[in-house]
């Protein structure tokens, strides 16, 4: 099994390339996820959101893509944890008594990507149990009839709205979005560097896009529970 591909994918740079590609794919998912979820703000009993949720769970192309998404999440998380362990071993058993954390451009979040990523992973498990599991196999979800539909569809909107009547759930989601923002703040530009896409003219733009994206995604997702709590 010592083919060039195995050697590549198990090398330090190969592993980083996997982290970068899955990371960028997950960011593209977050953008679509946010655009879709903003329909939660439209009110009106959530018909637009429920119809969108039905489309997202029944369109064959999107279903196929979702398997790639699950694989990417697992790959990114498992690989990330393995790299984290490997890097701790490389640091050695004896740590520094005094250590200054000076960087040449990267954010302080870059020091804590493993820890921040682990928090996001825990959030993701809770988030998936709350909504994704309920959508597919859950018993907490009701169905609703809409005009023009020949069968009732899941009322995911009602479940989301009910979840966000709890102030602690709102706080939990907002705090976790801060961690998502921090993770992306370093992750986006880091992915380009790992892929070797570094360029005098374009790297400053990549950094700006990464920072705008991380703030926009974190704020965009955080607004939803706050809005729904205030407008319940």
């Amino acid at each position, binding site marked *: 099994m010592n083919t060039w591909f195995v*050697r590549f994918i198990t090398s330090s740079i*190969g592993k980083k390339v996997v982290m970068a590609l899955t990371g960028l794919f997950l960011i593209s998912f977050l953008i679509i996820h946010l655009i879709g979820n903003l329909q939660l703000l439209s009110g009106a009993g959530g018909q637009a959101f429920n119809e969108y949720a039905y489309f997202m769970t029944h369109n064959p192309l999107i279903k196929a893509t979702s398997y790639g998404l699950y694989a990417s999440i697992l790959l990114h998380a498992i690989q990330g944890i393995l790299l984290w362990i*490997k*890097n701790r071993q490389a640091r050695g058993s004896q740590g520094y008594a005094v250590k200054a954390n000076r960087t040449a451009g990267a954010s302080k979040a870059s020091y804590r990507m493993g820890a921040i990523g682990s928090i996001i992973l825990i959030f993701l498990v809770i988030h998936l149990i709350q909504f994704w599991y309920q959508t597919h196999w859950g018993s907490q979800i009701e169905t609703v009839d809409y005009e023009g539909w020949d069968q009732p569809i899941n009322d995911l909107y009602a479940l989301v709205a009910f979840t966000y009547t709890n102030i602690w759930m709102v706080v939990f989601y907002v705090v976790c979005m801060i961690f998502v923002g921090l993770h992306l703040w370093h992750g986006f530009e880091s992915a380009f*560097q790992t892929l070797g896409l570094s360029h005098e003219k374009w790297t400053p733009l990549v950094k700006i896009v990464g920072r705008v994206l991380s703030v926009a995604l974190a704020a965009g997702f955080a607004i939803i529970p706050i809005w729904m709590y205030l407008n319940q």
Partner: protein
Amino acid sequence: MGADNMKLTLKIWRQKGNKAKGQFQTYQVDNVSTHMSFLEMLDVLNEKLVSDKQEPVAFEHDCREGICGTCSLVINGYPHGPMQGTTTCQLHMRHFNDGDTITIEPWRSAAFPVVKDLVVNRDAFDRIIQSGGFISVNTGQAQDGNAIPIEKEVANEAMDAATCIGCGACVAACPNASAMLFTAAKVSHLAHMPQGEVEAAQRARRMVEQHDAEGFGRCSNITACEAECPKEISVEHIARLNREYLSSSVGGK
């Protein structure tokens, strides 16, 4: 101007040998001149220790001109001390104040085992160089200096990478103890030059394989290495290494 009677408290890592358990020991040094280099200040301490029949502190040094890469030392948490773009030997005591407590530790990395006190074994870097950091040339008479024209801009970039003195500060600074900046500087230097083309397809792959085998960590683009590099080598070179590695590993034979 400058005082010549600074009093300092030094917390120095003492370790008898590789297997021995180390600990910090505190020393007082008086009459330190602001004109002294950091290593001269340690020389003063060692003279005192020797005259007191104590074991002097082991630390590495050679040229004391900032070009050989032998000196190391993590000073108050900064590899080569708090001044940027400076090796330990070129760090002067005027950057410290009377009464300061200074913590001095060796490079910490699983791939750089402590030999004694502040001295670590950096053979891993030599083995990375041996795996691909060379060019094949015909020996014999010296070539004409201008036989292979190289654009000034290209030569500049190659020189920026070639300034790496292989001191290991990048590893010491990196939270992942990764030697990517060192490996990248060597690969990037030769990748810029026509003389490096013969082995180009293999070089990045071989050197990264050796880097991994030595037990260095994996780069996560924290850029602490660039901040602490005494030659201020940019992480830009790591991006080039990644490109070279991808083309060598995925594109090469």
